[in-house]
């Protein structure tokens, strides 16, 4: 029972949103795709070089370092914020001071990545930094956290974990709330210890949430930019860059617009492929079609 009387108005209602998104987001995506086949410094006439940029990427040592760092980010954001968020959620659930404990882990979520980067630059700074002064109490020498490879990536991952753990904790707490307590109690009655109950009952039942958190960790670590930009600018000598930072430097520092476009296309393909796993899950649950 479609009512065509309202047809014109109904398109008019969609128009502002559609135009804004189409002009500022959709057209740029198509343009970037086209630019990725060009040799272009943004000033001189662009030259069409076909797959030239893509072929160059795989022989570019800098890209390989950047790609390796991105993989390190993916792996460690899975270990630290994921495992940490799960552990904290399981730990604080049902404690007397649950809300107070939760609030502590929420606070960093409200702080921007730029501010997080600034705070942790101080924490890790060599002479007056908090960490070096703390470990000095145990007789450890001063460490140059942010200029040492691969320590700098590790340091930034700690800052990242500090900021992101709360989100994962919230999600896991939501997941835990959906598990019927009878199931857990039944397992305990059967003589399974706390640890075995967790491995065999709780964790498998958290699977929907686990999928979300893992997908999100992978997607977000591919996108990581702000924190790295603030803490190391990708240095020293591009050693701590990830793909998002490399794209930025190639484009806006070195004016290689075609090459930068190719990197962002590769980045997008990876991110969309990973998200697709999640979207497929959502679609299979008919959430997209309500």
């Amino acid at each position: 029972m479609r009512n065509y009387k309202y047809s014109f108005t109904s398109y008019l209602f969609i128009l502002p949103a559609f135009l804004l998104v189409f002009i500022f987001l959709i057209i740029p995506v198509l343009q970037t795709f086209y630019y990725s086949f060009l040799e272009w410094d943004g000033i001189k006439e662009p030259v069409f070089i076909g797959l030239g940029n893509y072929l160059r990427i795989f022989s570019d040592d800098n890209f390989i370092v950047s790609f390796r760092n991105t993989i390190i980010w993916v792996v460690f954001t899975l270990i630290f914020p994921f495992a940490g968020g799960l552990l904290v959620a399981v730990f604080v659930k049902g404690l007397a001071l649950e809300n107070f404990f939760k609030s502590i882990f929420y606070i960093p979520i409200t702080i921007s990545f730029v501010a997080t980067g600034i705070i942790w630059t101080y924490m890790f700074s060599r002479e007056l930094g908090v960490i070096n002064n703390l470990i000095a109490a145990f007789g450890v020498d001063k460490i140059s956290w942010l200029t040492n490879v691969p320590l700098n990536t590790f340091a930034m991952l700690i800052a990242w974990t500090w900021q992101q753990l709360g989100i994962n904790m919230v999600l896991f707490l939501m997941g835990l709330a959906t598990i019927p307590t009878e199931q857990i109690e039944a397992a305990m009655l059967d003589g399974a210890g706390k640890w075995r109950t967790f491995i065999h009952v709780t964790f498998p039942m958290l699977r929907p949430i686990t999928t979300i958190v893992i997908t999100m960790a992978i997607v977000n670590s591919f996108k990581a930019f702000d924190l790295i930009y603030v803490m190391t600018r990708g240095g020293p000598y591009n050693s701590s860059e990830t793909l998002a930072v490399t794209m930025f430097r190639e484009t806006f520092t070195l004016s290689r617009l075609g090459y930068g476009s190719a990197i962002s296309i590769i980045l997008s393909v990876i991110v969309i492929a990973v998200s697709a796993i999640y979207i497929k899950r959502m679609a299979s649950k008919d959430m997209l079609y309500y």
Partner: protein
Amino acid sequence: MVLKKSILYIIIIILILIWLLPIWTSFLAAFKSPEDFINQKFYELPSEFSLIENFKNVFSIYKLHRHFLNSIIYAVAGGTIAIIAASLAGFSIIRLKPKFNFPLFLIIYSGTLFPFQIFLIPLYKMFNTIGLYDTRIGMILFYSAICIPFSLFVYRGFYTTIPREIEEAARLDGCNSFKLYLHIFVPQSIAPTAVIALFQMTWIWNDLLFGMILTRSRSTRPIMIALASMSGPSGGTIIPYAMAGAIFTSIPTILLFILLRKYFIQGMVLQISNE
């Protein structure tokens, strides 16, 4: 049992201390004069209270207050335009159901799929060509555009929950589509609007990347670019100023969080289910 419980508490308390350490030490540094900061240990209390002095210096050297104003304008205007455009579109897609409503939704929604890097070069070129580069109006338009896909996703989901009967009754009373939207749907959407406003305004406030690419002067650059310029690997950072800056620029988002914590968590969950 008691032993197990106390071990649990000890682990949690250690974690909490680790989580509080950066907050506590950065506050302490922000209260110290640069001289105190160099001469004292990080945990020592300042010999004189210098927070106000540090703020003054942050304003006069880095002009943070001016960028603060820019970002307030972007967050409020960008968030508001996105809310109006997305709620109208969501209402139409779900309730008026014109032909191609689902493909239209998918096109708009697809804006959230891409990593931001894919937008940068064409946006930079486009802004320079049509005279939006380094203008407030350009930033407002862009920020509204990038907030629309997520906002539409939320409204679209929410509007499916409003019962059809209300709509039919209003139609019988002679309500046209716009009146129906304004008098029936808008008043009922306070909760999703709070979630969206909070979340998108925080996002605009915290943005670094697009502000860096699309603006250059003091009267247009958002706050986070100014904050990022206070610290960096090339040295010259005055840590008490940088900490004062980090605290100053976090005030709006922390306040929003405290005031609307319930909505903040709802929004976060929605954002995640949107990824």
